[in-house]
């Protein structure tokens, strides 16, 4: 149990360090870096590498934004297995809805609770 927390720390930290290197060394904007990470995540799941990565690193693989791309591809493929090509469109948000829905809901609640700082 303690080991899994440590592995999550190291793996998650390394992914964030790569992100920092993309910003600092390759002089890209944060938005570009995040979009790139999502695309990398979906490609990794496309070639079947992200599942074993999650088994190994736990939250170190599911908390970084790369898992968003993984979830999109995963949901789409899962639904496509059952309902064919149209399943890609139906299942796209099936697994990632937790992140998007809670971001929207708590965004609205946050806007109700807090006042903008100047």
């Amino acid at each position, binding site marked *: *149990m303690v080991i*899994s*927390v*440590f*592995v*999550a*720390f190291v793996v*998650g*930290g*390394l*992914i*964030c*360090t790569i*992100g*920092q*290197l993309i*910003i*600092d060394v390759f002089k890209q904007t*944060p938005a570009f*870096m*995040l*979009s790139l*990470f*999502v*695309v990398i995540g*979906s490609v990794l*799941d*496309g070639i079947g590498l992200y599942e074993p990565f999650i088994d190994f690193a736990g*939250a*170190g693989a*599911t*908390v*970084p*934004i790369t898992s*968003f*791309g993984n979830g*999109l*591809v995963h949901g*789409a*493929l899962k639904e*496509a297995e059952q309902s064919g*090509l149209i399943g*890609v469109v139906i299942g*796209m948000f099936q697994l990632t809805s*937790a*992140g*998007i829905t*809670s*971001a929207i809901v*708590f*965004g*609205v*609640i*946050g*806007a*109700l609770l*807090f*006042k*903008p*700082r100047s």
Partner: protein
Amino acid sequence: MKTDTIKTIAKKHDPKRPLAKNCLMSFIFGGSLCALGQMISLFYLYFFDFSEETVGDPTVATLIILTMFLTGWGVYDKIAQVAGAGTMVPVTGFGNAVISSAIEHRNEGFVLGVGSNMFKLAGSVIVSGVFSSFVIAIIKTLLA
């Protein structure tokens, strides 16, 4: 005087980035957020009826609730100044991008302010993710 292009001028005034320190900070903060995520997952696995596969959802939701308070109190921005990518790459960075734009635009009203500005920063992530995933999933389905 030599003809300086805008790029060379900009390069001269580009602030020196302390690369080693930035990387160390993003490693520590990003790693801590993932470790926190792992602890939350273990908590849900242990005390609630979640499997290894489904435990990601409540973990992400919990992290985003935490982000809402940290963003509202103005703490998240302060951490982000030190931690750089360490606070952007974890899912809390996605939450912070959505929630901070929602709070920032609340004075413009809830429909045109909050509603239309919420995904101003996070939209690029969703668009690129959905498009690339669509292409990959279509290819994989056709090949299978």
